[in-house]
């Protein structure tokens, strides 16, 4: 798989998860915070989802809401953590 394909796969996995909860499509650049749905509880759920799905560990300074505002920002976070697995 090329890097682009890997990113696409992460993105579609994340949007599938959000769509299951939303009951509808979620654009990759849709701002969940602006839509008023990114409460700290929802963000925490997303943290656990990303960790268990992608085998990463989201701790310390990565626990900021900006990382969970859009599918794109979540993909960027997961991609970075997978490249630097020493944080686990």
């Amino acid at each position, binding site marked *: 798989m090329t890097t682009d394909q890997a990113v696409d796969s992460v993105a579609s996995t994340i949007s599938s*998860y*959000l769509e299951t*909860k*939303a*009951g*509808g499509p*979620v*654009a990759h650049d*849709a701002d*969940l915070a602006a*839509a*008023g*749905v990114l*409460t*700290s*509880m*929802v*963000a*925490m*759920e*997303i943290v*656990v*989802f990303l*960790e*268990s799905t992608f085998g990463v560990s989201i*701790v*310390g*300074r*990565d*626990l*900021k*809401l900006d990382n969970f505002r859009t599918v794109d920002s979540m993909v960027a976070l997961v991609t970075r953590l997978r490249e630097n697995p*020493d*944080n686990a």
Partner: protein
Amino acid sequence: MPDTLPAEYETVLADQADAWDAAGALPHDLLRELGKRGLLCAQVPTVHGGLGLGSGANGELTAHVGALCGSTRSVMTSQGMAAWAIQRLGDPEQRAALLPDLVGGQLAAVAMTERDAGSDLSGVATEITPDGDTVVVTGAKRWTTAATYADLLVVFGRHAGGAAAVVVPTTAPGVTIEPVPTPLGCRAAGHAHVELDGVRVPAGNVLGGGGPSLALLVTTALAYGRMSVAWGCVGILRACLRASTEHAARREQGGKPIAGHQLVARQLAELYVAERAATLACEHASGRWDARSPDMVMAGVLAKYSSARHAAAAGATAVQILASWGAADSGPVARAFRDAKLMEIIEGTNETCQLLLAEHALTTRSLP
């Protein structure tokens, strides 16, 4: 589920809980001993010297202790929450440095609440100010459980435009621990108001370097605290059920045990249902926790809310069943009545939990 509370502690907790409650203090040595055996924060991974229990097994341990002594269980909640905060918010070096201490006899408390910051975190005024290789912590925390016993405090505050949790030794200059004189419940849990007056600690004590949102930091720490309180309430419910059934089967009025009177029998049925409902809610939430499923977050809120509501109601019911036997300000039922009320307030009041649950019900329908 294997029982991890050694028998000698079962005996001492059962025998001494009333005396500790009356004195408003637990024996420090006992807490250190429980700490060294890893029992105060039993989910700390074995790689750091902990027992490495899952949420469900730790929950049963918490309920077991909670049925015997609510104050000791409160100390477990604090120590466990401190350990969880370090595990989640700390970097690998901090985890390796601090977690072995928390299963090595050091005691820890979490300082979160302030005068103007209970449910509303935007009121947090504690400042963690970077200054070279150090940070300076200034603020006033209230109702910090286990603070009178603690060697370490995990203090939440504002930091560099964001937020942070910082580990502060209670021996550091500028730390003042002022015990809460007469807590309504969990009277021996070491509740205190904590003053932090320009307390200087190494910058390396800021968990994960800090920076992220206060709401997410606190939500992370509370996720553990809510599970611990919920299981503690299961313990309260079991203590109430045990005392009530024993009394109702023995005490005779009108020529038969009061359990044979229908109005009392209904109360026993309600106690039993409450204990089962809380246990099932906790088992479900712990199962989701151990499976690392995203719905562990709301399952934890639900478990905490429903267990605390059931425990508070059960405390009152048990006093009613025991009547004059339950009216002395001592014994498992009196402690349950007082301790359970605090469980409707701590780690998210009933009302805060209701708002979260309502928000959850709405949010799952409104994602874009």
